């Protein structure tokens, strides 16, 4: 693949020197070559994204779990090992619990805040919005250390389940706010007015009119906050206690040892799980819109 791109780029560079060419023809050719090299570059990039993961998945089936050469044959033993590991299961359950609780908190807070940001004008609104986004950009190590010394040295609270959940709920908040405010901005408020005119109180209006429309956005926000919590290591490192089981901490200590045949299997299972979830999600909702909307301009604007 690499050589292919090389040739194409080279061809593209020499093209303008083509003597006495018909300008239109030349134009089309350049266009074609450019498009071709664009595809080639895109292909290379996807390869860059996928090759390490692909190799990891391959190794999860290999008898020699660290490197491709020498290849010693295929096996499912790594998966059996992974699924049989009690400590792995414990930390998986721990992480699922933490992520679900933290994301739920973040979602409730984020949805409420989004209503405030889109429906009301109030003093310091922009400041409020900015601080709602900041937990996302503060480096994890700094947030982790700050919360650790705050809890431990100021409040005398030892690290544990609650501290991890609190940290993660804060970390997830911006993702919910970004996605839900984006949706609320495009929401047709006259629908709500109509409901109110017909005598519905605010709660009924929210339940029957607003919620069904913004539910996908809320779901996406929850999912983002959930994933952020589930994959976080550094904040959990500083805030987890001896009885807090966290999958990333379990994995990190295995990776540090470089000696866990089940590691590839666990990691591959995570990739498979995400793949299925993502495929389903993409068939049902505008995932791209939410994702791009999260990290960038709202697509629907």
């Amino acid at each position: 693949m690499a050589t292919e791109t090389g040739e194409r780029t080279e061809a593209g560079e020499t093209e303008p020197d083509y003597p006495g060419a018909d300008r239109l023809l030349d134009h089309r050719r350049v266009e074609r070559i450019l498009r071709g090299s664009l595809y080639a570059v895109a292909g290379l990039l996807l390869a860059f994204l996928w090759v390490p993961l692909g190799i990891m998945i391959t190794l999860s089936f290999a008898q020699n779990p660290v490197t491709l050469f020498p290849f010693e044959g295929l096996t499912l033993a790594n998966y059996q090992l992974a699924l049989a590991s009690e400590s792995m299961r414990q930390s998986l359950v721990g992480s699922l619990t933490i992520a679900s609780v933290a994301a739920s908190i973040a979602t409730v807070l984020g949805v409420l805040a989004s209503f405030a940001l889109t429906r009301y004008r109030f003093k310091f609104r922009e400041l409020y919005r900015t601080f709602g986004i900041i937990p996302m950009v503060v480096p994890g190590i700094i947030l982790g250390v700050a919360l650790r010394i705050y809890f431990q040295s100021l409040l005398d609270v030892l690290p544990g389940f609650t501290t991890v959940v609190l940290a993660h709920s804060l970390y997830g908040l911006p993702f919910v706010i970004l996605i839900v405010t984006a949706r609320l901005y495009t929401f047709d408020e006259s629908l709500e007015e109509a409901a109110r005119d017909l005598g519905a109180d605010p709660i009924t209006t929210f339940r029957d009119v607003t919620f069904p429309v913004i539910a996908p956005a809320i779901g996406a926000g929850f999912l983002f906050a959930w994933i952020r919590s589930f994959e976080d290591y550094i904040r959990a490192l500083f805030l987890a206690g001896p009885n807090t089981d966290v999958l990333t901490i379990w994995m990190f200590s295995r990776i540090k040892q470089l000696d866990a045949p089940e590691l590839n299997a666990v990691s591959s299972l995570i990739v498979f799980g995400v793949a299925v979830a993502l495929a389903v999600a993409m068939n049902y909702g505008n995932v791209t819109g939410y994702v791009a909307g999260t990290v960038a301009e709202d697509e629907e604007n």
Partner: protein
Amino acid sequence: MPCNEDRQAESTSSGTSGIGRRAYITGAGATGFIALAGCAGGSGGGGEEGEMTEGEMTEGEMTEGGSSGDSGGTTTINVITWEEYAEMQENIESTLDGVELNITPSTSSTEMFAQWNSGQDEQFDIAVPNNNLVRRFMDADLVAPIDQDAVASFDSMYDKFKTFVDQQFTAGGEAYGVPIRFGWYGYAYDTRTVPDHEPSYDILFEEDYVDADLDGEIIMYDEAAKAMPATALYLGFEEELQGSEMTFSTDQIDQMQQALVDQKPRLQGYIAADPTFIQEFQQGNFLVGQSGRNEVIQMRTEGADWVEYVVPREGAMAWYETAVVSAASDNQETAWEVVNEFLAPQNGAALAQAGFSPSTNPAVSEELTQEQNELYGSIDPARLDGMIPFKDIASDVEEEYVSAWEEVKAA
């Protein structure tokens, strides 16, 4: 803030200690969440008060794990120690009725100390640091004296370690630490490439000590407590290592720093975890590596007959991991019973097999095969005689010592 729900969660848990911790966490989390959702809306202030309540919940959770033994259920003993100790977990849990172990793996004694001293001594019952850190645990009043009745195996230990305990881990007539297993640090090399030579730290630091290109082929320990003393021995600061702590001058620390900085370009890297060392040595990632005896023995039993392990002529640093029990633990007696189990022949054998290091209890060798005993099971501690036990750094130069290592890592 009317967050009564939090307290409710706590009382529920203490009422039903039979429920698993997991169920409790889930329940408490869910209740806490509902409580928060319910009562957070009303108030804009009082944040800290709210946090405090949550904090109590954390401790509630901890207590659930740590000390519900009073109510007759299981007692969970929280241990922070080296990875291989997990091998003994199952057997200890089946031997001691109603005791569950929760092992947090660690790769550094200083980290164990930092965690305990910053307040987590309330969350852990047992730590197993190296001998050099035990004194610090004692000085910081973190540890409880040995419960002699619970640690019945203490007497079956090699005399040498009993002497160590008397000399180093005793204060005010009370002993505080129980040595569990031991070993020493020298270096290992790949005999296929590195020729025979007189063992010396020079090989790690000097370019032409042996007739082999070792650039980018050397590994040092990724921990000040192990890499720095080796450097000191290389530089001939042996005297400073003889007392009860390492008494380097700032000038000597500077020299050690410089030697390590000069060495850095020749390193393949710094490695902390034994399995990583073995894995990479076997992959051929390096040729010479500062290492413990156990890693090399493990490699040899796995068939790597090309590894040679030597004790440098300048001397080797000896270690013996020593179990201590937290003074803040509610289950000190049970904790010492667990420590006693670490020394029991069957458990000691499991630990020796997993870590390729000898137990401090000679009776352990009865549980091992003759081959295992020759390799690692039955090592006469008299071999430690010429070696220097690990020491803590003298407190007046500790800061220079720590930052010298940081300079090396940053160079």
